[in-house]
């Protein structure tokens, strides 16, 4: 097994062969500028202090590590613990990154913010920090996602941001990202693009990882301080993979801890209707980086499917591709149905409504419970809460088929 080098990504933004910058020339210098600005804040203690203060008082960090006792009993396997990112302000891990990036945008003197969103959690987290810091905000969202994540759309608008529906292609996260990039190409001098996942051209996968690392840093600290041993495994859902890389990163060197990334199996990975990029994809280029990607034999990107809008993406962050090939992280997948059942179970037994994205990670633990001893502790990154999923939850509960 390859060990993970601290030096990644390298200067060219590569995680091994993955990553890089496959973008129009127009934004290359903006990416250079962003790389420099990000390097500068890494040396800036005032920035770190400001970020820490906002994470504490505005976001509500640190988030607790919670023993899901009744769920564990019901599942009948290892002890299941939740890292409660759902308790963050706006209800998901996404705000860790948007607070970091908006402070960076301010340092760079940018006045206008754009973002893409799938489930709406990143759009909400971006609109929230834009309101907090007084910057203009435009959110690109697929027309289909606008329908299935209606509550978040209304919140984003309430916060003063403009939601621009994207009607091209699959009308989901993939096309919202393309449209946000087109906006950035057009308005690159005035605009800061807050990418929501660990995807995109260099330095975005690095920036998003660094702002999400707080999840794993806290988890490592808490388990070292309070637990007899480190967890047997850490499980996180993977769409683009920001909550996963965030909780995994500080554990990469703790090789006794299994790291499991769970992708969206949709109707099953052999059905053609899934978003299990690492399971079924091949290296390819989309949205600025080389990474696993699901595409046909002509190189055309396939339309993904997931019950969860946040995982409904045909690509994945380049560092996950690297970690898959290195073997340090095990990537798996569960179906829409399995995820939905886990969501219901978590509601009934823990009084927590997890996001459909998050439910994929819980479902994996359920399915793989026999792999572990009863005394083992598994940490699930509870990346977000499921309030936003009520429209789709209702259609599931009433027995209507998902699209």
């Amino acid at each position, binding site marked *: 097994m390859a060990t993970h080098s601290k030096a990644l990504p390298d200067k*060219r933004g590569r995680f091994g062969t993955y990553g*890089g*910058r*496959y*973008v*129009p*020339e*127009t*934004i*290359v*210098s*903006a990416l250079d500028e962003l790389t420099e600005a990000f390097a500068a804040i890494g040396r800036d203690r005032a920035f770190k202090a400001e970020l820490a203060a906002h994470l504490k008082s505005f976001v509500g960090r640190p988030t607790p590590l919670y023993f899901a006792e009744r769920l564990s009993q019901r599942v009948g396997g290892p002890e299941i613990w939740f890292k409660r990112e759902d308790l963050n302000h706006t209800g998901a891990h996404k705000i860790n990154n948007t607070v970091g990036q908006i402070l960076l945008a301010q340092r760079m003197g940018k006045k206008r913010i754009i973002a893409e969103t799938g489930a709406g959690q990143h759009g909400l987290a971006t609109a929230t920090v834009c309101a907090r810091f007084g910057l203009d905000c435009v959110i690109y969202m697929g027309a289909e996602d606008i329908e299935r994540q209606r509550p978040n759309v209304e919140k984003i608008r309430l916060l003063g941001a403009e939601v621009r529906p994207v009607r*091209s*292609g699959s009308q989901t996260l*993939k*096309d919202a990202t*393309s449209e946000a*990039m*087109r906006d950035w*190409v*057009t*308005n*690159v*001098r005035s605009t800061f693009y807050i990418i929501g996942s660990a995807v995109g051209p260099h330095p975005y996968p690095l920036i998003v990882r660094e702002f999400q690392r707080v999840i794993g840093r806290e988890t490592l600290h808490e388990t070292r301080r309070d637990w007899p041993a480190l967890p047997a495994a850490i499980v996180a859902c993977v769409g683009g993979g920001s909550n996963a890389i965030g909780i995994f990163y500080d554990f990469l060197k703790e090789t006794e801890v299994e790291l499991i990334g769970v992708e969206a199996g949709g109707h099953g990975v052999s059905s053609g209707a899934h978003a299990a990029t690492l399971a079924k994809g091949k290296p*390819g*280029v*989309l*949205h*600025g980086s080389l990474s696993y*990607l699901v*595409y046909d*034999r*002509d*190189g*055309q*990107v396939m339309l993904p499917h997931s019950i969860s809008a946040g995982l409904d993406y045909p690509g994945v962050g380049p560092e996950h591709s690297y970690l898959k090939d290195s073997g340090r992280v095990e990537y798996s997948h569960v179906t829409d149905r399995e995820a939905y059942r886990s969501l219901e179970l978590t509601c009934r037994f823990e009084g927590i409504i997890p996001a459909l994205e998050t439910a994929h990670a819980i479902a994996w633990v359920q399915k793989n419970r026999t792999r572990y001893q009863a005394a083992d502790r598994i940490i699930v990154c509870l990346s977000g809460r499921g309030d936003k999923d009520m429209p789709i939850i209702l259609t599931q509960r009433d027995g209507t088929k998902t699209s």
Partner: protein
Amino acid sequence: MTRIATCLAERGRRKLLVPFLTFGYPTVSHSVDLIRSAADVGADMIEIGVPFSDPLADGPAIQYSSHIALQNKVSLRQIIDAVADLRKQISLPIILMGYFNPILTFGLDRLARVGAVAGVDGLIIPDLPIEEGRGLKSALEAEGLSAVFLVAPTSPRERVASVDAQATDFVYAVTVAGVTGARGKVTRDTRDYLQGLRRQLTKPFVAGFGISSPETAAMMARDADGVVIGSRLIELIRDARTSAAGRRNVSRLLASLRTALDRVAG
């Protein structure tokens, strides 16, 4: 000498007219006809658009034409075969323009090899900046093909110099920060930028993005060695009642661009 090198060497004061047409739009056979008629009305090179599912640098018109072309099941292999066929009738340089993933999937070396045999003269990949484009340059040049790289109004001087050095024969100047699409006017900033390129570049350059009319083409061509027109042609085809009318409108616009460019050349 390659077809592109010959075209550039023999152009004299002539300003190059480079139409862009998405292959497979509105249909495969109509797009072949469009390419032929573009050659007939005074184009100097043809850019053939290879459709992609996620055209990041394109505005609505070319997004639409790519979408239709993919519905028509166009593949890169088919485009190369079509170029081989077109070579029986047209001798002007043919450059393929397409996003990287279909090309990566096909294989760069393989594309250079079979492209050269078919009569493809060069490649433009809008999502492959020079840092990622080294493999492209060596693969293409090994087969006598031309690697075309882009500069943009946001490219600093050092990057412009690197693009100039990396480009095999000529440079593609994106005239505005933005996606492809017809625009009404040429701003003072654009002219300053093109004049800056004229002073700095050692290789010829064509200006593209935003050219919609003989007037905009002539404005750009005062400083550039030629112009690329794409989105406006797609719009003419899209908005015509019949495909024959679409082709007539495209030919008419290209002919008027030819006249306007020749006037600039004096």
